[in-house]
């Protein structure tokens, strides 16, 4: 492509596609760039390769049937999507889930956050050629998946929550398993941190690369670790605490420059904070019910169903029809691994959601990606894409 540059020179730009099926595009994304030498003069990005009509599909089923679909949003931390959706529906019913359920949800959320950050950081490092970290993190992540498997039978897409509670209580030995894996997580985080934090190659590739200022990040609607890396100390767990996060002792981690380095390091340090939250959660785990006693959402016990006509009807209606939130529009959000995961639900009072809009955190992050890359080098495409943690499942829905 022959152009006249802003400085008045005649240059020949080369157009090149990175993706949609490129090893460094985490998922299927397309980056169409015009290169001046190795510098990206401008680039346009395209998404939608994994669009499967999530929002159309969920309108066809009941609220409970939405849950398995939410697993497929951010599949690196599927449980957090389950929890976010259940929390939104529970808000519509004004239900408070039992304390044990809340604590289990926090433990599962924070473990999910850790494995999500692990995938984000180590695949980003693989894109930079640092393969060793991948094994350190994926070894531990595998052990978390073993816990998931024991917990609910599924590894990646768990559907572990139910509206008003959990699929089932944790298995005997869960606490010991989690405590064991936390020690290994700490070791792995320490090893990876040791390998990269002062590594000259890593610093050269990531420091001052694709810088996003705090004001830009806010205008782009960034949330979560990427916003914090730009120096904005905002975390829903602190700012609008839910599930009693305000009673847990943990720090938010913020960056100073908003570059790729900070986005990776914020996640590394957040893992350590999450380990501490999980430990506090395990200490608080007291025996008790895991499902809300509210008959509008929770199935009655089997003993009651077999001996009580009302309970039988209740069970039948919940299974064959589903839950019915009050008509209206409700927005609710949780701090997922990637940032603010919001669900805007429009209910018409019926058993199927009238409209569910997911606010995936990486959507706003990837919207900024084309601007982030402008003026960067071609090699920075791979270096910075991992740091904004694009999960095509939630990006394209």
């Amino acid at each position, binding site marked *: *492509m*022959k*152009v006249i540059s*802003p400085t008045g020179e*005649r240059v020949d*730009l080369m*157009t*090149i*596609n990175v993706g949609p099926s490129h090893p460094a595009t985490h998922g299927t994304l397309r980056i*169409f*760039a*015009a290169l001046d030498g190795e510098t990206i*003069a*401008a*680039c*346009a990005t*395209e*998404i*939608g390769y994994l669009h499967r*009509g999530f929002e*159309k*599909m969920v*309108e*066809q089923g009941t609220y409970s049937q939405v849950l398995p679909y939410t697993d497929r949003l951010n599949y690196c931390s599927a449980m957090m999507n389950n929890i976010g959706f259940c929390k939104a529906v529970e*808000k519509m019913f004004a239900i408070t889930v039992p304390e044990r359920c809340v604590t289990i949800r926090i433990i599962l959320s924070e473990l999910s956050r850790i494995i999500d950050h692990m995938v984000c950081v180590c695949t980003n490092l693989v894109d930079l050629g640092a393969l060793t970290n991948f094994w350190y993190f994926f070894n531990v992540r595998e052990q978390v998946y073993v816990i998931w498997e024991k917990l609910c039978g599924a590894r990646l897409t768990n559907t572990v929550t139910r509206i008003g509670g959990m699929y089932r209580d944790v298995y005997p030995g869960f606490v010991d398993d989690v405590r064991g894996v936390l020690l290994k997580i700490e070791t792995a985080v320490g090893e990876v941190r040791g390998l990269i934090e002062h590594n000259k190659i890593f610093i050269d590739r990531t420091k001052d690369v694709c810088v996003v200022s705090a004001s*830009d990040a*806010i*205008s*782009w*609607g960034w949330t979560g670790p990427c916003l914090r890396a730009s120096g*904005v*100390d905002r975390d829903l767990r*602190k700012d*609008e605490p839910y599930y009693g996060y305000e009673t847990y002792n943990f*720090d*938010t981690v*913020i*960056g*100073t*420059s908003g570059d790729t*380095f*900070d986005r990776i*390091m914020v996640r590394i340090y957040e893992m350590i904070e999450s380990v501490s939250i999980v430990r506090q959660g395990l200490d608080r785990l007291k025996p008790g019910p895991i499902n809300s006693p509210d008959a509008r959402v929770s199935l009655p016990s089997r003993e009651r169903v077999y001996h009580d006509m009302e309970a039988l009807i209740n069970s039948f209606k919940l299974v064959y029809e589903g839950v019915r939130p*009050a008509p*209206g*529009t*409700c*927005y*609710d*959000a949780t701090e997922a691994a990637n940032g603010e995961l919001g669900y*805007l639900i429009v209910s*018409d009072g019926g058993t199927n959601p*009238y409209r569910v*809009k997911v*606010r995936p955190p990486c959507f*706003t992050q990837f*919207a*900024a990606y084309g601007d982030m890359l*402008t003026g960067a080098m071609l090699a920075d495409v791979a270096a910075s894409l991992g740091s904004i943690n694009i999960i095509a499942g939630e990006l394209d*829905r």
Partner: protein
Amino acid sequence: MMVKKSNVPDGPMLPGLSLDQIVTVLAEKFTVVRDASDQWGLTLVAPAEKLRDIMRFLRDEPTLQFAMLLDVVGVDYLAYPGHRGERYAVLYPMKSLTFRHRVTIKVTVDEDACVVPSIHELFRSADWAERETWDQYGIIFAGHPNLKRLLNHHEFVGHPLRKDYPCQKRQKLSINDQMLDQLEARLRARGYTILDHGESHAGTPITDASSVPSLGTVKAGDKL
């Protein structure tokens, strides 16, 4: 150390205004009505022609500071039981990063004109969010510089999240969007003058749709 840890570096989030106070502050300047359907938070129905002013006010007013537009959400009320009024609505959930308060602005959209003003100049997050809403609902965001489909294929016909779009309908889609127009627009915005579009590189997809045999018309119910 590149990353600092802290409990409250910028000070804790301030409590902010109550929902009633937000309504009062806005109602002094604009005609907004609280939407009774949102009993869990605050949704305000605003007139579309004042949308830009309202959004700017929400962002810049010192007592509000709704700095972040979280999303742009389309809703089609065609099948909503007992619904009266315009068929579509666009919702704009917003939050403040200074105060602990949130608001959702709701604009109703007439079925025939199907247009609302774009706010991409006020919030950069509106750029893609508005494209997605156009793609899924066919709502036009007047003034948007690049109102193209985002999630669906560029050859897709119709707007799938409309309630009258059949869930099972299938369409045959084949040729990639070349995106050269978007790339050139971005180059021009940076001060480049384009002399020729260049030869197609091995990496660019099929360049010219006219060189591909026509696929014919695909009707609903066709087995593809």
